């Protein structure tokens, strides 16, 4: 069974079901790969092999007792932003480097209930603030397609782990593109569900009105299986939505005939022609299956980045106030007094990017600036959301690129935060409007993967997964594995 690691979750599920492999065997195989590639990729912050194997043994036991859940015994990785009971949950920060969570996030709990095994916790930008994984206190994860390049961020560890087949799938979170951008840069399939579709309880907050949990995997089919287990109303998250979760797998095969695809004029203006070429080729694949293409315009979309960089820091400045060195987390040595405790614990516990955003956020919420920045940004956000709404009266989904470039070199953008922020130019709009969106591999430029983005109306996850799956039935970009990880 040397090829186990190349299999999708759906295939592994079948093997487990047939009894061809046990969860313990599978888990052991992935743990071995994680260990072998740990130094090269730095994709994981924590791996608890003993716990993973215990969970796997429990899953095998459940199966022997007659349980036949589709995900029973499937091992995956969790982004280290999800709290896991009794395990270290760092959020990529020195602040929480030794934080042992006393509870499970709802997402973790639900997947665990379905029998999913936790291989480990993946690397990420500190508190999910970054687009390259370089803000992680634990050092950047690396892109398996070229280890001198970034995997993207903030869910960079999850993307790298799936791309290198160290895990068949991994959870992620997406506040401004943190699932889709690394999925694109690492050549994997990522989905950010509708805001409110997946519980945020136990998912460490960055910007509460934008954060949404989702996942990264090999295929849309796998995403459908896992999302169905993760999603759903959670009474512990007041912003989660009380809507039934559809059986995403059941509608994957639906034909695309008559599907109306909108091409975002704003996404193609100024796009690298080589990337545009790959996107157009992908669109042709969908067109061949009966989809119709139409150009649409979202006039306020170009304001996404400045809007986002007011709203997200504002919320983060407040969300991160709880890390004060008093109850848990990093505390400075021998504080002189309360103010010294606060200043040094936070000054030493947070990295530069987190501090930058806390300062921006504090500034835009300050008396005298609130109206000019925060309130104005909320107004623009509403305009962007209504642009999308209008577009969805004309078309079923919007398609464009996920990122403006392929994976860039480590260190290339760390000097200039604005250049880094512009990497999320195509992904942020869906977060501001709370829309579901996916990124899937659609080709390569100079041996580096390129991502295709699909954005849908609220709660259209089934449709997005259907389109992505039909595309993946016709192409094999998502099955390509970087050299050295096959």
């Amino acid at each position, binding site marked *: 069974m040397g090829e186990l690691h190349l299999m999708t979750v759906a295939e592994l599920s079948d093997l487990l079901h047939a009894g061809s492999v046990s969860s313990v065997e599978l888990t052991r195989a992935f743990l071995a790969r994680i260990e072998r590639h740990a130094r090269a990729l730095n994709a994981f912050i924590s791996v608890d092999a003993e716990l993973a194997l215990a969970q796997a043994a429990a899953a095998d036991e459940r199966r022997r007792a007659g349980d036949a859940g589709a995900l029973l015994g499937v091992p995956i990785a969790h982004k280290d932003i*999800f*709290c896991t009971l009794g395990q270290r*949950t760092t*959020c990529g920060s020195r602040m*929480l480097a030794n*934080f042992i*969570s*006393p*509870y499970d*996030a709802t997402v973790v709990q639900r997947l665990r209930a379905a029998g999913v095994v936790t291989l480990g916790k993946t690397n990420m930008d500190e508190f999910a603030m970054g687009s390259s994984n370089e803000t992680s206190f634990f050092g950047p994860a690396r892109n398996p397609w070229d280890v001198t390049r970034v995997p993207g961020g903030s869910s960079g560890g999850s993307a790298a782990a799936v791309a290198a087949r160290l895990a068949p799938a991994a959870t992620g979170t997406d506040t401004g593109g943190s699932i889709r951008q690394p999925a694109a840069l690492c050549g994997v399939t990522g989905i950010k569900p509708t805001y409110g579709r997946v519980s*945020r*309880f*136990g*998912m*460490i*907050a960055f*910007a*509460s*009105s934008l954060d949404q949990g989702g996942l990264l995997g090999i295929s849309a089919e796998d995403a459908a299986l896992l999302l169905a287990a993760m999603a759903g109303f959670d*009474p*512990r*998250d*007041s*912003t989660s939505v009380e809507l039934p979760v559809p059986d995403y797998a059941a509608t994957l095969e639906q034909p695309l005939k008559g599907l109306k695809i909108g091409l975002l004029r704003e996404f193609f203006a100024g796009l690298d022609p080589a990337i545009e070429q790959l996107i157009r080729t992908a669109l042709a694949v969908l067109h061949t299956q009966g989809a119709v293409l139409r150009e649409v315009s979202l006039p306020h979309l170009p304001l996404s980045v400045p809007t986002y960089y007011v709203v997200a820091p*504002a*919320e983060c*400045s*407040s969300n*991160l*106030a*709880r890390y*004060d060195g*008093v*109850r*848990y*987390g990093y505390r400075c040595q021998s504080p002189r007094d*309360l103010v010294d405790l*606060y200043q040094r614990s936070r000054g030493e516990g947070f990295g530069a990017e987190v501090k930058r955003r806390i300062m921006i956020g*504090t500034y835009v*919420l*300050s*008396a005298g600036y*609130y109206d000019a920045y*925060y309130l104005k940004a909320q107004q623009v956000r509403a305009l962007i959301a209504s642009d999308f709404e209008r577009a969805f009266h004309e078309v079923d989904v919007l398609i464009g690129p996920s990122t403006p470039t392929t994976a860039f070199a480590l260190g290339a953008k760390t000097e200039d935060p604005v250049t880094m922020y512009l990497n999320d130019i195509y992904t942020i709009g869906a977060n501001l409007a709370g829309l579901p969106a996916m990124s899937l591999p659609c080709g390569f430029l100079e041996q580096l993967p390129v991502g295709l983005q699909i954005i849908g109306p609220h709660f259209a996850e089934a449709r997005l997964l259907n389109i992505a799956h039909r595309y993946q039935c016709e192409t094999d970009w998502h099955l390509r594995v970087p050299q050295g990880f096959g």
Partner: protein
Amino acid sequence: MEWEPVIGLEIHAQLATRSKIFSGSATAYGAPPNTQADLVDLAYPGVLPVLNAEAVRMAVEFGLAINARVARRSVFARKNYFYPDLPKGYQISQYELPIVSGGAVDIVLEDGTTRRIGVTRAHLEEDAGKSLHEGLAGLTAVDLNRAGTPLIEIVSEPHLRSAREAVAYMKKIHTLVRYLGICDGNMQEGSFRCDANVSVRPRGAEKLGTRTETKNLNSFRFVERAINYEVARQIEVLEGGGRVLQETRLFDVDRGETRPMRSKEEANDYRYFPDPDLLPLEIDQPTIDAVAAGLPELPDQKAQRLMSEYGLSAYDAGVLTASAELADYFEVVARDIGGTSPLQHAKLAANMVMGELSGLLNRDGVEIDGSRVSPASLAGLLRRVVDNTLSGKIAKDVLEAMWTEGCEADAIIEARGLRQITDEGAIEAAIDAVLAANPAQLQDYRGGKEKLFGFFIGQVMKATSGKANPGRLNELLRKKLGGG
């Protein structure tokens, strides 16, 4: 120059919910430190608030009780500041869109006039924890049991013009929240407390003076003293040619004065913004109607009813309805005395409840529901006044004995032989004896010193141990003196 104080109060009332406003922890007072704080109260990474529906219902009740607007849509906001007793680094409160706005309550002043005091708004928010310093040798400890306890902050218009008005207003709100059962009103435990905004201006002026805010006053007496001090201080500053600084002050109970809080603590920019973890709070009309239908009889309604059903004065009705329990007690007494209608002996019942009974309650520091004389027993006592077995004066002594010994009135009357003397022969005999024993006074009386009438009454009462029926005695003595 004559100065006019302008006062507004911000009252914080803890809502009597069983669990906290955003978590499932219990709210009971006095538990060992940090035993009633869960991961949400401790602001652990990843946790989220969930609004307590009961707290919302209570706030709606309050809004309806003060004839305010209950917002169909209100918004929770974060008030950001760092303090160890504030685990999240922000307090969840309501800022721009509160749940209740634009209400009013009436207060009765001592001269019997009524004033209407506007309530600008009342909003839901969470309480902070407590910092503990005692017995910790320079260290500070944090107890988060109170963190997340639901509060309504009730903000008055600056309609109050004296410390006494402020106290009357605060008492009115106190009465109201206790009638509604939404707050236990316990001021020592901090369940009901206020901040006082005080300014002064030349009488007749339109423009408001600069105000100060005195924080955390947790007794009616402190409110009165702090406001009086602050008014006098501000007048002194202004008359001395100075300026009142807009600042936050604390009341020093021991020294009876207010003083500024350290400026560091008030230099906060709270950076309020809508809490993205909580959706706007939407309340529909059927919900509001259902709460309205369940409202108990409120103090003003009850007072009106006591006036019309029992013929009480506005003053008496006001005193008796200060608590629902006191009013209930009175009503049982008034009905149990008997008679042709509840009106007949209501004044007698009211006087006894407001006078002697309240005196005993105050003396022993118990509330009306802890009274050692039940309303039925008190009615039993008053029946003996009505049927002339006891004089009013002796009835007071009997009440005290009932209170101390826990017996019924009749038992005490029998045991002590307190039955009033109404028999004419016995009273006449006592009068004759007194007149015979005081010939000089009798002569003076007949010589025109009519004031001595009272002297003879007193002597007869003394001789009968106070048991002579006062009406009968009066009548017979007058007859004897006139006829002699």
